[in-house]
């Protein structure tokens, strides 16, 4: 019941908001506080789940199962393990922050905005907790709708183009996954006589190598678009740049992780043989993405775009770690997912605060802000360093583990990926320098207000988590260990078993 609450609370919150009469924005304040309260309550629920989570067990916990569409073997089947637990917590953690960030910038149709944010949160958590492929697909697709509206209604100038592109790209990928899901269920019925979308049952299916290849590709293209893996990334800069700040935070913080989560939860364990076959190719795309994203980020004049491309680069690391499919690699990938959620979410948040004040995001429009807004500068510094992967902050642990894991698998990738680490320091610090150091080049900037209390409330938790994740990595590595081990074992065992087969 607890796990159901984690996605039901925001959904019910959205329904309650729907009933709040808010003609001409008269009750905006009430709507804002109410939605914040709902997201905080959700966060509390996920914290309780984390507290009660048994880190030693690799099994799915908080499992709930009810028959839903029995004719098709579809169950309402949810549960979490160490892989999804922290992603759920991350989602619930970022949502109130994203909402807070919108208090200054979203002025019109606040009620609808909040409804879409809450619906989005519900769908995102739903994606992470679903263990039934049907349920998963429902949440996966349902999530597109609120995001589409968030970008399309409250975004910047090119918002419609970005929103439609986001929606169509993601859908085009996911419908092929739909066919593969149906194919899996059919294979299950061919093998056992009943349809099933139960992930745990499907894990045990023995699928012919040729079929695995097709299904793996269908699933992986859907996830690769979401990640986004080079060359499927072209929707991302548009969507990130055009989305309102809250949308960008969620997009970078959570949505991208669904791609890598999908690889880890579905593509690799369901089709281990195909995974072994395609992993080097995926890893190649990942390292291309790492370097490409970094190089493109370097030349961006727009801060938001820079951060967007840095995501392409950072997510490349995650995919590399997953492709390595060993303990270090996967744990690092998972850690990097969390760290990237916090630090890139933070970067979008801070860039959004600057752009709220100046209505521009061009780096050249800023300069010397250190003296004008020291607190924002400090926060930006912490998050920037975290994003680069400075030891002692959250980014380091993940990147280090990924490199370690990838090195044990295939050192060649590590060499190229290492280049990406250096480049990330270059573009992030260069941006920081241009924006915050030097003299104040534009007089409009001289009188910009520093962080307001509301903004403090959004920024401080992010910085704090960035530090905690850097200093006490075991706090986060511990719960994921058993489950990661289980996945790695499952994939490796399946691969060796099938390699021995005549």
């Amino acid at each position: 019941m607890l796990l159901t609450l984690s996605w039901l609370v925001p959904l019910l919150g959205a329904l309650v908001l729907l009933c709040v009469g808010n003609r001409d924005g008269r009750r905006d304040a009430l709507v804002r506080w109410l939605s914040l309260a709902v997201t905080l309550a959700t966060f509390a629920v996920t914290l309780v789940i984390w507290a009660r989570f048994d880190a030693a067990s690799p099994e799915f916990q908080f499992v709930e199962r009810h028959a839903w569409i029995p004719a098709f073997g579809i169950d309402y089947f949810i549960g979490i393990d160490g892989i999804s637990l922290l992603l759920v917590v991350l989602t619930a953690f970022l949502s109130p922050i994203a909402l807070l960030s919108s208090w200054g910038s979203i002025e019109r149709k606040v009620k609808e905005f909040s409804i879409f944010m809450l619906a989005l949160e519900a769908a995102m958590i739903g994606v992470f907790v679903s263990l039934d492929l049907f349920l998963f697909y429902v949440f996966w697709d349902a999530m597109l709708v609120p995001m589409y509206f968030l970008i399309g209604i409250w975004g910047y100038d090119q918002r419609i183009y970005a929103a439609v592109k986001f929606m169509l790209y993601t859908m085009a990928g996911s419908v092929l996954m739909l066919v593969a899901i149906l194919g899996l269920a059919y294979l299950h019925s061919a093998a056992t006589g009943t349809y099933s979308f139960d992930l745990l049952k499907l894990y045990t299916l023995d699928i012919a190598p040729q079929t695995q290849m097709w299904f793996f590709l269908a699933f992986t293209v859907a996830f690769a678009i979401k990640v986004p893996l080079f060359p499927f990334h072209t929707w991302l800069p548009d969507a990130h740049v055009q989305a309102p700040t809250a949308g960008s935070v969620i997009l970078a913080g959570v949505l991208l992780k669904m791609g890598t989560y999908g690889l880890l939860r579905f593509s690799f364990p369901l089709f281990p043989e195909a995974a072994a076959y395609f992993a080097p190719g995926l890893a190649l795309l990942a390292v291309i993405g790492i370097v490409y994203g970094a190089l493109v980020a370097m030349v961006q004049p727009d801060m938001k775009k820079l951060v967007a491309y840095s995501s392409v680069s950072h997510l490349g690391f995650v995919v590399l770690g997953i492709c390595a499919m060993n303990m270090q690699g996967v744990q690092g990938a998972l850690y990097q997912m969390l760290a990237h959620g916090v630090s890139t979410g933070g970067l979008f948040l801070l860039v959004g605060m600057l752009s709220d004040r100046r209505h521009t995001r061009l780096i050249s429009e800023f300069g010397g802000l250190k003296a004008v807004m020291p607190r924002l500068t400090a926060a930006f510094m912490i998050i920037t360093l975290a994003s680069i992967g400075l030891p002692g902050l959250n980014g380091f642990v993940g990147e280090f583990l990924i490199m370690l894991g990838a090195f044990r698998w295939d050192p060649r990738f590590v060499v190229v990926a290492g280049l990406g680490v250096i480049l990330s320091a270059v573009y992030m610090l260069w941006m920081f320098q241009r924006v915050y150091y030097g003299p104040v080049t534009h007089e409009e900037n001289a009188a910009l207000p520093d962080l307001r209390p509301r903004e403090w409330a959004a920024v401080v938790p992010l910085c704090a988590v960035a530090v905690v994740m850097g200093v006490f990595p075991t706090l986060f590595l511990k719960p994921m260990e058993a489950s990661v081990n289980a996945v790695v074992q499952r994939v490796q065992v399946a691969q060796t078993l099938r390699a021995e087969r005549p």
Partner: protein
Amino acid sequence: MFSSGIDAVVPMLCVTLAALAVMGAEAFRARGEQLPLGGLGVVGLVGAAISAVLLWNRNAVSFGVVVADNFGLFVTLVLLLVALLTIMFSSTVVRRDGLPAGEYYALVLFATAGMIMMATANDLLVVFIALEILSIAVYVLTGIRRDDSRAIEAAFKYFLLGAFSSAFFLYGIAFTYGLAGSTRLDRVGTYMAAQSMSGNPLILVALGLLLVGFAFKISAVPFHMWTPDAYEGAPAVVTGFMSTGVKAAAFAAFARVFLSVFEPFSGEWAPLVWLLAAATMILGTVVGVAQSNLKRMLAYSSIAHGGYLLVGLVAANQVGKAAILFYLLAYAVTNLAAFGVIALLGTREAANDELRDYAGLWHTRPALAALMTVCLLSLGGLPPTAGFIGKWYIFSAAVSAGYYGLAVIGVLTSVVSVFFYLRVVVMMYMTDRPAAIAPPPVSAVAMAALVASIAAIIALGILPTPVLDFAAQSIATIF
């Protein structure tokens, strides 16, 4: 030879009586007097629905040519729902546009009676007469705005091509009769089963002609030419009625004839229907993208939806048959509601059915915009809507029958279709209204119908199990 009871025709009888009552009331109406003619129709429809429910599981046969099996009754109930919603939407439109209420409601009811007959007919002759009843009524309904030259053109085109397709259908019946010596489906079925190995080319001729006739009625590509013009020219509420009712009835008869009588020859017709389905899905969506008139866009969209239904027919397994039924229901409710919104936004002076007329609808009519959005999402097959479950069902049928190619075409075309459905959403939500033209007020009855449809769409999307079971039961007794 035939059971003497008339049980199986009672639903159709109720609707016909209601139509006669409407005609009678209209004839004796004093000039200027307002009569609740739509209400009379509703009474008939409700009576028909009750009788259909009572007939459930009884497999009643009347006159040897009509069977009220569960399959037919399921479609009958869908058709009654379609007619009910149509009448509820019409109340506003008839008054606003000054349509002749008596003729209008009587024709809607006659068409419904024809549809019901078509769905339950067990004899090709009756299928044909039923087809003509519904067609004649719908031709007139298409041109019910006599003073609108576009409507008249649409009606005329529809009439000519409809007559043309009827000829094909009739020719097919003639060949079937020549071969089997009967038009009764059960007897034809026995004959066909015995001849399944004979390789008689005349059977294929009969099959092909019937296929063409049905393909016209469900507007499958390349027999769809009449659809966009007819759908665009007709009043929106009539378009909603015919894009759902006619399609459902024709599909029911199509499925009945091809899945039972010509089942032994599925090896011959399945590849043809495969091609029809693929062409229909692709053309319907691709051409739909280029439309700027909402009615025309939805016309192409409904062509494409016919293609999805054909996928279920090709798959022809238990899943596919039940999927057709579920999809018919989901599609009927959704499409009808979408056309309902279009109809309710029109005024006597302007149809307001161009895409640009929807700019900023969110600000002037937030409720209608939201309802329309749900319809469009359902048509696009996004969860949690009925359209999503319908597509899921259809494509699982295709996959489990091994038609991966068709499933892939289907899902990709639904992405393309989402593109044009989103254009409407973009207009409603993300574009500002150039000039503040307040849309006309919406009557309570029409609004209730809309809200009920949307509730049904979402309910079917979240808890489809009862209806899925119902659909599965419906096909269990036959085929």
